């Protein structure tokens, strides 16, 4: 379905990729110190507690930083953004910003975003982000 490099799911990341398949962006939260973190691991990277919970994130984020790549890459049509977004819950993740012109003028740092999921294989749906629309400000949940 896509020439994008496919993630190979590992036991510790299975919940994340199961989530994106069903339209959920999942993070982990430490029950001992309340730290919310990403990428997945079965213990808290802040306090090392193994009492951690998986939960569904809001799917809302802001644009933290990005580049617009202008060189050819298999599976991508340049120019395309490679971005890091800051999730409402705190952690940051890499993604692409979609449904918006791939220009510096359109892509403003700190703009509000929401997650959308793009299925790229039987097993993998990627979390991408698009501008938070006026219609989605009240519901706002990553579908």
């Amino acid at each position, binding site marked *: 379905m896509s020439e994008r*490099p496919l*993630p190979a799911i590992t036991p510790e990341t299975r919940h994340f990729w199961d989530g994106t398949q069903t339209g959920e962006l999942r993070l982990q939260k430490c029950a001992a110190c309340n730290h919310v973190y990403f990428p997945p691991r079965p213990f808290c990277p802040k306090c090392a507690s193994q009492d951690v919970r998986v939960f569904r994130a809001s799917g809302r984020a802001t644009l933290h930083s990005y580049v*617009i790549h202008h060189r050819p890459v298999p599976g991508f049509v340049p120019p395309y953004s490679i971005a890091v977004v800051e999730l409402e819950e705190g952690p940051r993740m890499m993604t692409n910003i979609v449904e918006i012109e791939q220009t510096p003028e359109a892509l403003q740092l700190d703009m509000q975003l929401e997650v959308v999921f793009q299925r790229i294989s039987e097993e993998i749906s990627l979390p991408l982000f698009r501008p938070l629309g006026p219609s989605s400000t009240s519901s706002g949940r990553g579908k």
Partner: protein
Amino acid sequence: MKPGSIAIVGAAETTGLGVIPDMSQIQLHADCALNALRDAGLKPSDIDGLACAGEIPTNVAHYLGIVPTWVDGTAVGGCSFMLHARHAVAAISAGLCKTVLITHGESGRSRIGAQPRSILPASLQGQFEAPFGIYGPPTMFTIPVLRYLKTYGVTQEQLAMVAVVQREWAARNPRAMMKDPITVADVLNSKMIAYPFRLLMCCLVTDGGGALILTSAERAKDFPQKPVYILGTGESVETPMISQMADFTSSRAFRVAGKTAFDSAGIRHSDVDHLMIYDAFAHLPLYGLEDLGFVGRGEAAAFFGARHTAPGGKLPLNTNGGGLSYTHTGMYGMFALQESVRQVRGTASAQVKDVQVAVCHGVGGMFAASGTVVMADRQP
């Protein structure tokens, strides 16, 4: 470790530099190693400690005919050699070996005998970065910069100035690959690679290598070259994923490695006569100047603009022309170290007057690792 108890007594780059289609990667290690041994008046049989990256120590030891009692294959990217120097200081001081050879050789451009570059799909980077179209350092190392520019109100013109100033140094180095003067407009009109990064803000891709030989300060006095004493060192790592770098305006690994090196050397910033900061891209000297504490947060671009790092400036920086204009094989840190050694010896092409203390600061991966080495022309 007592500052100045270990010294660099041999240093050399590969005979050729830039485009070397007639040498494989392992031969690049050997070529610079043989040059460094000649520089120090030694034979491979005199070496009992070996450190290298790119090739594992087994490969280099076998190829050169070295029988080591100590090896270090630390491979954390382009600053691995700063870490090797730090580890060698510890190993020699602890009596694990007497004479250490550190080698770098990389066929970065011709890619002869070089390992393929790939990201493991099951790694965290393979799962959470690779699917979004990262494709080599220009798509990763560059990502934090828009945040830096916005936070401190720094312009792309100021970023371009880094490349302009370093080209001025390169013009004074016959071995530099790019020597023609450039302007800010040239940089901003060069090919767009990954906005906001243009071609001339990105490092070169070359073939080459370099080697260092270290021994105790007591033995160093018997070698043909003027010893370059190691006053202090530092190292750290942060994250293999650029997206997980804690602060996009500052490198934790830079701060930890830099402070450790300065503290162990017992130096202040005002003691530093010459500085190298690994410049894979134009923003790295800005982060380096701030994270090492030479200037305050957000002040590095203005410092560059005021020509303080340029020829004739008060803090000569990247005097070989750097990874942007001198050479960049992939793991450039060795070339930064070579230039520091030349400056302390007094043999550099763009020699700075009376260099007593030199700081050499490296990065590995995309702000993933860091190593810092403080050198001096005398024991404290």
